[in-house]
């Protein structure tokens, strides 16, 4: 992404946020991971072939404003419920990756009134293991190279040359890192209450996982799926923690196929 690719902005619940919109048809809300979303990402175009893609940049990330007092993923979930109302979405597919999937799950346990399908990819958000086991690798205790080694099936493709990026884009990188800590520092990348609330999600749910994800392993995804009534679990081959980046075609195809199946029972 470069500063030249300015993203349109919209005021939602009083906060000016960046919002990527692409394609037409039924609404598909894409909630990005902590590393943000590049408007040029192939996955957005692939998804837009079968849906009206709405990809907001979370408050505090990218160049989106951060409303005062917003400190938790719970706050973000309520913000997105406001967004769904203001955009008057109905039968929306909500797709989240990593940190974005945590937000998606927090939204869905509150209400699925405007949703038809939920896709959680390599999701953060719940506590699975015992108290001395970190379910999710501590990205704040690793160098960027160590994080990339765990996050990507092919870490070479993840390298970014900061020296060649302009100031505005570096500000986005720095802001994304800070916002990720703001919302996920402790309890680290999860809400201790969330797992016990997942049973409230009664719309078709697909839990997608990169088979090479070593930030949070596929077994964590299986536990996530097991806690959501009727949820399906699927692996994406040759993908790590960000399957939407490493396998955009496969990712979009799976999401759109899942969303094409019948939604909630009438």
């Amino acid at each position, binding site marked *: 992404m470069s500063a030249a690719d300015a993203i349109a902005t919209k005021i939602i619940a009083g906060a000016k946020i960046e919002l990527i919109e692409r394609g037409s048809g039924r609404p598909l809300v894409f909630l990005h991971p902590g590393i943000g979303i590049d408007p040029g990402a192939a996955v957005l175009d692939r998804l837009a072939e079968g849906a009206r893609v709405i990809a907001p940049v979370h408050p505090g990330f990218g160049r989106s404003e951060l409303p005062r007092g917003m400190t938790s993923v719970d706050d973000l979930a309520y913000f997105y419920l406001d967004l769904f109302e203001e955009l008057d979405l109905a039968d929306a597919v909500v797709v989240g990756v990593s940190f974005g999937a945590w937000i998606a799950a927090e939204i869905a346990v509150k209400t699925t009134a405007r949703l038809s399908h939920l896709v959680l990819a390599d999701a953060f958000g719940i506590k699975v293991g015992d108290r001395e086991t970190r379910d999710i690798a501590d990205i704040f*205790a690793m160098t960027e190279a160590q994080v990339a080694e765990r996050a990507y099936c092919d870490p070479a493709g993840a390298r970014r040359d900061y020296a060649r990026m302009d100031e505005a884009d570096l500000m986005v990188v720095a802001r994304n890192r800070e916002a990720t800590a703001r919302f996920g520092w402790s309890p680290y990348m999860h809400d201790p209450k969330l797992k016990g609330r997942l049973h409230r999600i009664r719309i078709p749910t697909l839990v997608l996982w990169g088979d090479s994800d070593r930030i949070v392993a596929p077994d964590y995804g299986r536990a996530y799926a097991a806690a959501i009534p009727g949820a399906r679990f699927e692996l994406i081959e040759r993908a790590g923690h960000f399957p939407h980046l490493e396998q955009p075609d496969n990712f979009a195809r799976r999401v759109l196929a899942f969303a094409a199946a019948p939604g909630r029972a009438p």
Partner: protein
Amino acid sequence: MKVFHFTEQPYFPAWDSHEGSLRIVLPNRKCDPARAANLFHRYYDEWQLADALGFDIMVNEHHSTATCLSSTVVVTLSVLARQTTRARLLVLGYPIAHRSDPLRMAEELATIDVISRGRLEMGFVKGVPYEIPVANTNPVFVVERFWEAHDFIIKAMTSHDEPFNWEGEYFQYRHVNIWPRPYQQPHPPVWSTTSSRTNARVLGERGYVIATLGSGYNTRALFDAYREGWAAAGRTGPAAPDRFAYLGLVAIAANEDEARRRGELVAGYPRTSAIVAPQFRNPPGFLSVADNARLLQGKTPPRSYTKDGRVINMATASVQELIDAAIMFCGTPDQVYAQIADFTEHCGGLGNLLMMGQAGHLSHDDTVDSLQLFAREVMPRLAEMKQPVATAAA
């Protein structure tokens, strides 16, 4: 000028086998409790000597590190409150944003102030970035937590007529009513540290004592930002020298060769302090977004300047460079006095020298000799030295 004797209480026996990090991840099996006990007693002995020689005393804490054995400064203060008799006891600092319980902190500090019969100086600090991973305080909120903890402690120390309630963003209490209340009224003096002009100005507005470390011949810019804040708060007259403090390493001896030898040992502090695994050096949110963007480009802000404007790296600088940057005052008593006096002129007034009189491998005997020499030959001259009193416009 007041002179405070300070040591980080280093556990130097572990410095030779650290695998790239003296902090956070260095396993504590490398700490021999018997050697730690000997070192604690030795450092306390040196502070008692400093008390007897007319120094004031500065103490601090760090966590999970071989650079500083003191992980709970309240213990150090408690020992010294009872075992010293006249020295001011400066804690610089107490990392109040990283602790979960400011009520407990107010109680501890008030109690120490009472036991010492009013000798406590309260330095509140945000802490170095390496404290964050251990404290687990969200680095994004450290500044806000710092000021709420500060506001609470001051209110707890100055409320005497009825218990009060506190329902803040970070801390909640009922029936706040600390016993004992502090000896000094309305509360022990407040100090803080900073390396930014913005924060320096805030400290000036509040009139607290500002202390800097490693800022060398860039210190004047920070002190002038303080003076701007001081004046902006509507005070008449310039900030007195006692509002300004500077931490400098001191290596002193009867002859220059011996002083340089001690200087090499004392330089163990800047040479080890930043040995930290890289992933812990810059927790998210600790620096501003703009500063982090510059860091990503590989631009690190220079901190330490020599008098003639050269930038030095504290971690790798030679003793001569440390002297040139006023990070170390080193030499015979005459030389050390001249260096401090010159630096005081640069600062536009400096009422408090925080003297790292022990650091690194400097032995007990060397430390005792240095303290005695400084007390005999330098301290009286510093006490008599006429201080410049600058206004904001240098």
